[in-house]
């Protein structure tokens, strides 16, 4: 990461990752993997296009790939609900993860969502239950799980695909418990203090790396991933290949245990 780039504020990075030109999950899948086949539906209610999933190949290794799906234009954004998933999206993702576990395929998740959708249908169909189940089941998966936060890591909606052995963030990605606007309006009763909140929340890749929440930061091309998508994908692929070489040598049970222990130690408190 260049020194100049390090100086970008959290708000500046939010602007970068919210740009229309920012690569989406399809850009990454098509350049990093071969033979991708999309698998749809949660086998219960429907197919939520806010989350895209399927199987593919990374070199010689068959993998399951799942990611939040942001649109490239207005129509796509309407179709994909701006990557804000309903419960059936998380249930589809979980179905594909259990399938991956059965066939000993590593799972690779791409996170880029403002958050899980807030609406009537989402509540009726158990948004809370769907995310809760994702967290618990992901934690115990006996197969390697790698998550890359590529843009917006919006709270529980992001975490629902991020209980992984290795979590990375792209250099400009953000990941937070609440949006800066939400934080400012709830805690300060003043939504205009959004920028101040963004800094305070410590939501940049560097912040999360320093707090030992993520394993690493994947560098972006100068001015952001959209400036050189090919190079961006190369950087991601290098990380994935290295990790898969390491993780595929570990037993399933041990992978689940390592993942649990990692999250077990998250939290800052004092002890008398």
């Amino acid at each position: 990461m260049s020194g100049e780039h390090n100086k970008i504020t959290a708000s500046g990075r939010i602007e970068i990752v919210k740009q229309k030109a920012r690569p989406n999950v399809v850009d990454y899948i098509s350049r990093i993997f071969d033979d991708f086949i999309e698998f749809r539906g949660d086998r219960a209610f429907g197919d939520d296009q806010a989350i895209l999933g399927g199987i593919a190949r990374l070199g010689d290794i068959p993998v399951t790939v799942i990611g939040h799906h942001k649109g490239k234009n207005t129509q796509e954004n309407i179709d994909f609900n701006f990557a804000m998933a309903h419960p059936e999206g998380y249930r589809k993702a979980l179905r594909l993860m259990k399938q991956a576990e059965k066939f000993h395929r590593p799972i690779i998740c791409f996170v880029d969502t403002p958050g899980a959708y807030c609406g009537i249908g989402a509540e009726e169909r158990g948004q809370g239950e769907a995310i809760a189940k994702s967290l618990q089941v992901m934690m115990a998966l006996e197969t390697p799980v790698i998550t890359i936060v590529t843009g917006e890591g919006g709270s529980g909606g992001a975490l629902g695909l991020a209980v992984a052995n290795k979590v990375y963030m792209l250099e400009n990605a953000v990941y937070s418990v609440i949006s800066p606007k939400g934080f400012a309006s709830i805690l300060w009763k003043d939504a205009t203090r959004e920028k101040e909140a963004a800094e305070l929340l410590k939501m940049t890749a560097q912040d999360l790396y320093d707090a030992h929440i993520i394993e690493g930061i994947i560098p972006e091309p100068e001015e952001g991933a959209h400036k050189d998508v090919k190079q961006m994908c190369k950087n991601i692929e290098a990380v994935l290949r290295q990790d898969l070489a390491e993780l595929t040598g570990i037993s399933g049970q041990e992978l689940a245990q390592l993942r649990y222990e990692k999250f077990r130690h998250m939290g800052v408190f004092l002890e008398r």
Partner: protein
Amino acid sequence: MLIDLFKKTRYISVDLDYNERQKELGPLVVCPFCKKSMRAKEYEQRLHQCQHCGKYGRLNPEQRLAITVDEGSFQLMNENVYTTNPLDFKGYEEKIAVLQEKTGCTEAVTTGVGTILGEKTCIAVMNSEFLMASMGSVVGERLTRLFEYATEERLPVIIFCASGGARMHEGILSLMQMAKVSGAAGKHSQAGLLYITVLTDPTTGGVTASFAMLGDVILAEKNATIGFAGRRVIEGTIGTELPKDFQTAEFVEKHGFVDKVVSRQELKEVLAKILKLHRLEAGN
């Protein structure tokens, strides 16, 4: 005749013992929902259920434990874990100190072990008086330790859930508690042990989206608000007003996410019954 009106003598009764009698009846409380008043003593006897509108007032851990566990059986645990200020959020430590003073609790969850009609179980009670029972590092750590203890000792776990969600003051660490506690509940479950959640008013946000919805048995108190997103957030998103019964215990039960809606009066017995049935099944 008009003059008769002025002649008429009117009597009013003056109760000279009024103040005395009021004192004997004790102080009044006002229902937080219908705003009607009633005697505090009676309200307490009715387990904080309003005699006018029938709604339940929120209980703090002390009140909840008093009506749930066998007298003298509860042993506090994990009180040595306490809050710090990871984001250097201005005024956070002071806020915690004030709340500790006000509530007599050290954090937003009280954990321990006790018996319910003789059935031994680990218990956690979340405290809506303490920053709306939001989950930060301490709540996450205490609950995780409770699950670990229960797994080790082969005990069931009951969590009385209530929460506004993740504690924003602690940033991303709060979000990670959702994964941590869900994972610990998973380990407890893998060991074949029973986990019951009781959803009380209000159970929302990151707590709904983690351990609250992971019970083997999920009970909910009548009328409790249960949901993922806040009502106002949803109204803001969809641009219309929501029906009154939206996100109530009954609504969530109807949609299949709660095993049973229970009254506060029957809750203790229902819990004991479930605990007992699982004890028999396990053959202990």
